């Protein structure tokens, strides 16, 4: 039986006490965003840009709510300063669940341009990065959330088209 990835991700967020989530949409993330919006145990505050979302997450964390940002990889560029001078400089834990557009299975050529830069940018920023390619990779999501809180770092979880298509 195929894993319900949207539900599984939501369950892990709840199991790991994530109470504040901000999102900027991607069609691959539509299902998980809907799950979060309908979940009373999580405060969902959509943001207009990803660096704004990181500011919201920092405020929520300091207010006692563990937070998470859900975003697309094309926005990595606009978050470099926030990641460096806010999240890393002050040592805030920030799980980033990222739709990895532009990989095999992509229909839009322009998405490939940022896909090429995604892992090099994260590596240049010394951000621990995990790549979910097969649906079973979701098994590690809970442990990555724990690792993020322990390390007090931004941590990227890249989720590609094959992962969301159920590996088929």
């Amino acid at each position, binding site marked *: 039986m195929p894993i319900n990835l949207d539900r599984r991700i939501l369950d892990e967020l709840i199991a790991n006490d994530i109470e504040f989530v901000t999102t900027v949409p991607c069609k691959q993330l539509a299902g998980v965003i809907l799950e979060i919006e309908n979940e009373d145990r999580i405060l969902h505050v959509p943001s207009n840009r990803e*660096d*704004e979302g990181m500011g919201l997450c920092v405020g929520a964390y300091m207010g006692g709510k563990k937070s998470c940002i859900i975003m697309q990889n094309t926005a990595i560029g606009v978050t470099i300063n926030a990641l460096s001078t806010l999240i890393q400089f002050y040592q805030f834990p920030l799980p980033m669940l990222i739709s990895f557009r532009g990989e095999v299975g992509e229909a839009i050529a322009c998405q490939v341009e940022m896909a090429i830069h995604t892992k090099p940018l994260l590596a240049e920023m010394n951000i621990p990065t995990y790549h979910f390619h097969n649906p079973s990779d979701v098994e590690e999501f809970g442990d990555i959330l724990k690792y993020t809180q322990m390390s007090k770092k931004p941590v990227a979880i890249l989720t590609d088209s094959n992962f969301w298509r159920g590996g088929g």
Partner: protein
Amino acid sequence: MNRSEVLKAIVPIISDELVICNVGLPSQELFLFDDQPSNFYMLGAMGLCSSIGLGLALSQYSKVIAIEGDGSILTNLGALPTIANNVANNFVLFIIDNSSYGSTGDQPTYTGKKTSLTGVAAACGCECVVECQAEDAPDALRAAMESDRMTVIVCKCQPGNIPVSVIELSPVTIRDRFVSEVERRAVKQKRVQKLTKLS
């Protein structure tokens, strides 16, 4: 009055409140005038002061004041619709609008020309937007704090800076002492709620 004079004038009102303060000279000035563990100084990440303030206000019950600048909010105007649509009545966004990028040498911003931040905030859906002159800032801020209503204040003032030193606190120290202060207030509030129930 310039920004530093506005800040000095509002210190008695904000001294015991949770404050998120904008990067550069505003944080350095607040640090000089009234350093408190309840002040979160931005050392970087220009433009995110309002967003941090909203996230904090939505996540706990104490009042939160975000001290923004016109240049800073102009880099993150997307924060205003988010603020308008996620109402936190314990949140005051206090924008000191000196129509200039003070920390970089007083280059003019567009708020000294055609752009009204008051109009922008209202158009974004913020329901309580107050524009005041620098001299009226303490009264406007006090009224906002007492209203228990999310308020955006646009305080018009003159450009100009005073000599200040950089903040020598480490970012982790700023974070830790601020979070301790948030937790202390949360514990105090719970105790008051318990006592109120008992009586």
